């Protein structure tokens, strides 16, 4: 703990007073700069009613102190409490230090920093070092290992692509039934990100160098997110960067170096002879007409030519071709220093994040300048940030390599690379050699530049009051240039002036925002701690998007728009301007009695210019209460050092999309004109009677620490009731619009999460800790009745979600399957009544599983020995099911077209071939589409080593000779090993990666 205070209590041993009388104590309470502190409370610890306050110069006079020895408490909000022993002295000068902000003791909400002990909400805070002990990729990747309620939705399509932003969820999805139209700027379930008090995009968080992070706080329940109102429905992630510290000029450097390599363990593709055998069995070489037809002869010839190639040893392994092992490094240099009044910090960082696919890159260059100035009651702080990102996208998608058959030769005999693997005549469509495609220019380069500045002014007055203003702006420019060579097969057959494509897109945004917070905080009589805040904030965001694409290039040498033939006929440039604004008023109050009972109240009014909002302002409120049992007088259990129970309730925000749905929107037609002037057509008809989706969120929490911090437990249980629910229903086209929103029923989500830390072993030099985090969420529909019956029937064999009372959005519905009949190769189903049948009937479907795991989380261990430390964190997920769509699509339901591409090995080995086969999948030559059945619903248990790291700190002599004060080095292995009960292809367009890395920090 960094908690520290100074005490300059002066005692005068000669000033003995006569016994039996009351005495007085006079003195002054100062801050660290020696300035008197007004409004500080001075009282006797054993009789708190005997107390006084300092005047506006910090002077106090405590009268009528009974005889004997007493402990006198000096206390003030925001300052560390000081106790002195009163033995009869007449005067005392007490210095109160500003309350040191140990990360574990405060909750940084981004607007106000709260003492954790009096906070009633559910929030967890992690220090930059804790994040760095997990990994160095980015904050969010580390955070998902530390915070059980936050998940990063696995992107099975884009895998480890450095240019794809992660999809985050805190406490699961905020549900909308049915499909959602993409009218919204943000991913609907993404939390709100706050960086140093200001709202930022997810990119800004991902781009932030992990060495610049002081702490990350995740706000989860209504009580803690209410201060952000309707934007915070999905939770809030608050990031604080390291401020400059006073002292001599300090230089610190940290560098991260890593090797990332592709993880192809989920791919299970056939080799050349397997593939050929599979094709043969699947009937690829059997003519549909009678066997003696010329068609059959051609097929035979094709088969034997391929067989010959396979016999000659052709067995191309395509997967490794587009991939590479990459070395990534990032560096952060920070210089800070200053005196008590003024501090400054300058940081520069660079990060290189090459992707494991050739041609995909991302590098980030950033810098920041921080200045803090403090004079009397004023504090002035300014942060300036600059970041530049360069990103490149790979030219050929990974699936083209995964699809290529192994019996094709990669290269001709002369070493040249053929463009075609298969002509249209054979496959019905042209199959190109992905290797040749990689050689054809197809670039996509993005350059982002972002500049931001933030000014923070704080004025403390009359002791108990403070006024803080924060103003910032961000200017971002993002430019993407893409060029596709005229030689690209996309242009085969196009006339000369339509070959090649160049496109340029630019988005230029300017945001400004500000916040003014008026705070009051005071401790009355050492018992009643009252604080209140009123704040007003505003933000404005302007985005201009422009773009065009032109065609008609002669070659790759001039990838310059001036060398094009111009616009393709009928196309025109894209140009759009949009502006969004929001403003909000917040009132929050906190009361704590003797540190035992705490109450939090929040009310926020949010106004937003979200297009279509009929109702511009919406209110959100929350109420929280907590009881710190350890502060009770009667509480005697010494072994428990901290025990607090919390409860909160509130209505977290109505999502922005509510507003869209209650208003009709017309769109102007820019494409066709006539002589009657402007025209507009309905882009979305509204349901004017739509009620807003209301959620009531309740949270019960427990914080527990025992045996000198050797056991630390945080547990939260939440219950969210959303009623009415917004349901997106499908209409027949004759309604004029095939999708409409309506209110139906409700949804109840509940779950729990917790973190348990146990220090199993603790000696002078050694510490061994075990950490275990867990979470579980369930949801169910209520009051739906049979109003959505038509959607249940509609989706029967294609989707597996059903809407009944008590049904869960996570449930998987399908007809039960008994597997493949060994005699016939046909699937045997179980009817609702338990009879066996070959006939698939959607009526027979039942709930066969749930995608929600019974329990998931992290189990880990940390070990410290002297200056050496090690940690290991593993993710587990147990008890859920998954619909194995890769098996369904790529093993079972292979279409005739898919036979031309390489497929999963199981299509050969696990499909039924002849009577007696005990097969997982249907007959190998059966090209009919199998409906979804329980056969593809598999238990999804996963265990993976998410992070392993080892570190060493030193301030050895030899380092000091080279002027290094201290150094630390850390080695990491991330996502190094994963076992899953479902073996499925992941990373279709971009594979997943494992990484091993090292970080070095030096302090000069």
């Amino acid at each position, binding site marked *: 703990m960094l908690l520290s205070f100074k005490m300059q209590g002066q005692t005068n041993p000669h000033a003995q007073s006569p016994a039996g009388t009351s005495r007085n104590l006079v003195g002054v309470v100062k801050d660290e700069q020696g300035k008197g502190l007004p409004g500080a409370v001075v009282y006797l610890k054993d009789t708190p009613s005997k107390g006084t306050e300092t005047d506006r110069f910090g002077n106090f006079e405590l009268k009528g102190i009974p005889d004997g020895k007493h402990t006198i408490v000096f206390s003030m909000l925001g300052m560390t409490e000081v106790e002195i022993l009163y033995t009869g002295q007449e005067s005392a000068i007490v210095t109160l230090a500003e309350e040191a902000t140990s990360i574990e003791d405060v909750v940084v909400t981004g607007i106000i920093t709260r003492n954790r002990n009096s906070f009633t909400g559910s929030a967890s805070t992690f220090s930059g070092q804790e994040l760095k002990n997990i990994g160095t990729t980015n904050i969010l990747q580390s955070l998902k290992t530390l915070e059980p309620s936050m998940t990063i939705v696995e992107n099975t399509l884009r895998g480890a692509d450095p240019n794809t932003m992660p999809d985050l969820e805190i406490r699961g999805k905020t549900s909308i039934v049915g499909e959602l139209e993409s009218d919204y700027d943000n991913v609907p379930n993404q939390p709100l990100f706050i960086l140093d008090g200001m709202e930022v995009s997810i990119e800004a968080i991902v781009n932030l160098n992990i060495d610049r992070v002081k702490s990350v706080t995740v706000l989860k329940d209504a009580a803690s997110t209410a201060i952000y109102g309707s934007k915070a429905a999905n939770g809030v992630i608050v990031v604080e960067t390291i401020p400059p510290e006073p002292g001599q000029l300090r230089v610190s450097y940290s560098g991260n170096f890593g090797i990332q390599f592709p993880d192809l363990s989920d791919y299970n593709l056939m080799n050349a002879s397997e593939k050929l055998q599979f094709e043969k069995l699947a009937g690829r070489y059997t003519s549909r007409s009678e066997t003696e037809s010329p068609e059959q002869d051609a097929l035979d010839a094709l088969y034997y030519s391929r067989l010959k190639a396979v016999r000659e040893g052709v067995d191309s392994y395509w997967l490794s071709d587009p991939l590479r092992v990459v070395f990534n490094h990032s560096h952060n240099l920070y210089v800070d220093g200053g005196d008590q009044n003024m501090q400054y910090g300058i940081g520069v960082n660079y990060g290189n994040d090459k992707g494991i696919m050739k041609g995909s890159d991302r590098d980030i260059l950033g810098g920041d300048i921080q200045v803090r100035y403090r004079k009397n009651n004023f504090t002035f702080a300014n942060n300036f940030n600059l970041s530049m990102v360069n990103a490149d996208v790979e030219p050929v998608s990974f699936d083209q390599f995964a699809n290529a058959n192994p019996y094709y030769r990669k290269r001709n005999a002369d070493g040249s690379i053929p463009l075609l693997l298969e002509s249209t005549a054979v496959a019905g469509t042209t199959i190109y050699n992905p290797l040749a495609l990689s050689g054809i220019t197809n670039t996509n380069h993005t350059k982002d530049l972002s500049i931001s500045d933030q000014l923070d002014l704080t004025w403390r007055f009359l002791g108990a009051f403070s006024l803080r203003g924060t103003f910032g702006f961000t200017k971002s420019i993002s430019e993407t240039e893409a060029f596709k060579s005229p030689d690209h097969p996309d242009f085969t057959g196009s006339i000369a002036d339509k070959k090649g494509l160049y496109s340029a897109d630019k988005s230029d945004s300017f945001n400004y925002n500000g916040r003014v917070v008026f705070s009051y905080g005071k401790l009355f009589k050492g018992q009643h701690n009252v604080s209140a805040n009123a704040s007003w904030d505003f933000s404005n965001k302007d985005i201009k998007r422009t773009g065009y694409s032109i065609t008609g290039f002669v070659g790759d040498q001039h990838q310059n728009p001036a060398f094009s033939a111009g616009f393709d006929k009928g196309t025109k440039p894209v140009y759009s301007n949009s502006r969004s604004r929001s403003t909000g008023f917040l009132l929050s109050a906190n009361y704590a009695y003797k540190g035992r009972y705490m109450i939090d109240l929040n009310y926020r009014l949010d106004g937003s210019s979200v297009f279509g909002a*009929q109702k511009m302002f919406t209110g959100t409120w929350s109420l929280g209460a907590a009881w710190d049992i350890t502060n009770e007088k009667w509480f005697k259990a010494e072994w428990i050092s901290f025990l607090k129970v919390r409860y909160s309730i509130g209505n977290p925000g109505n999502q922005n999309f509510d507003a869209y749905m209650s208003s009709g929107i017309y769109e102007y037609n820019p494409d066709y004109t006539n002589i*009657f*002037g402007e*025209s*507009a057509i309905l882009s979305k008809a509204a349901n004017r009677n739509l009620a807003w989706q209301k959620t009531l969120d309740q949270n019960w929490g427990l914080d527990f620490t025992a045996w000198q911090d050797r056991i630390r437990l945080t547990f939260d249980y939440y219950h969210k009731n959303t009623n009415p629910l917004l349901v997106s229903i499908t209409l027949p086209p004759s309604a004029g619009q095939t999708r409409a929103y309506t209110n139906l029923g409700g949804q109840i989500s509940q779950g729990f999460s917790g973190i348990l830390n146990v220090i199993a072993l603790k000696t002078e030099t050694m510490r061994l800790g075990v950490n275990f985090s867990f979470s579980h969420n369930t949801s169910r529909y209520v009051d739906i009745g049979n109003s959505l019956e038509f959607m249940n029937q509609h989706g029967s064999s294609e989707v597996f979600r059903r809407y009944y009372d008590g049904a869960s959005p996570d449930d998987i519905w399908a007809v039960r399957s008994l597997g493949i009949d060994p005699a016939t190769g046909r699937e045997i189903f179980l009817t609702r009544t338990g009879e066996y049948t070959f006939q698939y009937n959607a009526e027979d479907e039942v709930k066969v599983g749930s995608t929600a795991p019974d329990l998931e989380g992290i189990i880990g261990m940390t070990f410290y020995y002297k200056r050496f430390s090690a940690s290991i964190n593993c993710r587990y997920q147990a008890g859920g099911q998954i619909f194995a769509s890769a098996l369904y699509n790529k093993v079972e339901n292979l279409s005739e077209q898919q036979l031309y591409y390489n497929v999963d090995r199981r299509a050969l080995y696990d499909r039924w071939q002849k009577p007696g086969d005990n097969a997982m999948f249907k007959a190998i030559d059966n090209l009919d589409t199998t409906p979804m059945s329980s056969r593809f619903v598999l238990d999804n248990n996963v265990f993976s080593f998410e992070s392993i790291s080892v570190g060493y700190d030193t301030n050895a002599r030899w380092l000091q000779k080279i002027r290094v004060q201290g150094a630390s080095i850390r080695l990491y292995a991330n996502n190094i090993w994963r076992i899953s009960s479902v073996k499925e292809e992941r990373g279709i367009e971009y594979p997943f990666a494992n990484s091993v890395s090292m970080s070095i920090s030096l302090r000069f």
Partner: protein
Amino acid sequence: MLASSCKAWLNVDSEDRILEERLFSSTDGFYTALNGVYIDLVNANLYSGTLAPSTPDILAQYYDTSADTHTYSSLAGFQGEAKRVAVNDMWSRAYFLILNVNKIIGHCDERKGTVLNELDYSIIKGECLALRALLHFEMLRYFGPVFSVSPGADAIPYMTDTDPKVSPVLSGTAVMARLNADLEASMGLLAGSDPVIAGGKNEVDNGGRNLYGFRNLRMNYFAVKALAARVNMYLGYLENYRGKALQYAEEVISDAARFFPFSTREEANGQAATGNVNTAAEDRVLSSDILFAVYNIRRGEDIYEKYFYNTLESNRLLAISERGYSSMFPEEGDLRTFQWARKRDALGNDVVCLVKYEAMEVDGKNYPYMIPVLRMSEMYLIAAECYNASGDTDLAYRRLNTLRNARQTSSVSTAIEANIEYEYIREFAGEGQLFWYYKRKNAQTITAIYDRSKPDITVGTAGYLFDLPQSEDGFRD
């Protein structure tokens, strides 16, 4: 004050979108929404395709699609799947526009007297009711029954609600009743307000919105009446409907003929527009007698270059043979021959292409952008058919010959029915009316227009019936 200044600050406009409430808060907004419907009528699934130049004319056997590899051979052969694919998107687009129209009608009634004055209310609501009838009637012709066989069969839903809702499928006769009600209401509103009644088309561009001008590009009073004639003629096998059809047709002829005269040769050959005969200025749609046309600034690109352009791959091209052409136009002076041209296709074969919708620019003229929907000539044909059915042969020939002469062909005095059909064939190429003539007649076989030497094509009653699109039908089980 703080609250109101906050609200003012939050009020942000969008460049490409506008809120419904805001749009309908001014008369101008009403016209913007109404114009949105007119402009969308040129959608490729409506009058730039499925409702006029493509599907119905392919089904009517205008074009040679006999090659197996021809894109439209299965449609021309009345194959179920091809028919289903052809009309799928049209259905949703038409009903989308109907919803748009219903929204405008709803707002008209809410804001009469506050936002809209009497005149604008009558014109806007009158045009909207007519557009609603027009689009429903187009759907009825496709998806409704052959009335003379099963008039009570399920047809289509008739949408009048301002919110997207599921509505029941009505029988053919029920839809007819709704159509007549809308058309009568529309005529009632326009009769007292439409400037076309006294002033005709008024083709003077004043800039701006041209609010009460260019009535031939709007569902004007006469166009609505002509539509009513067409709608009632669709049940022309019944005397009472035929009577109404005749009445409407005769009223249009007597009241509107002076405003919508037939085109002259000078107009057709470009002389009227440019001072001399000019292929690039030909009024090939013979625009003068058009009562209502949709206006497509990309007509050439959307229609001609998609279906009729001779450089198209030959299996996509819609064209007829020289033999078909000469039997279609035995008289060389026929003004409608301006709509066709002898060309060479991609394979080097001689073909005759419909150049009616070829892209061109003629100063001050709208005909290069027009796709005719309703025209005066049809009124003469309806009248002729009605007179003939009631035994009034003289009047029937007189009406038919007025049209024939106007198109600069000779008069006839025999075979009235065959000659009426012949006139439908010549008059409505690219306008999609002929097939519906066959459907209402329940013609069991029809002629291969592209080459009369080929045997007639058997349609049968089933050929005229279209299933509701899957996306619609799925809700109806």
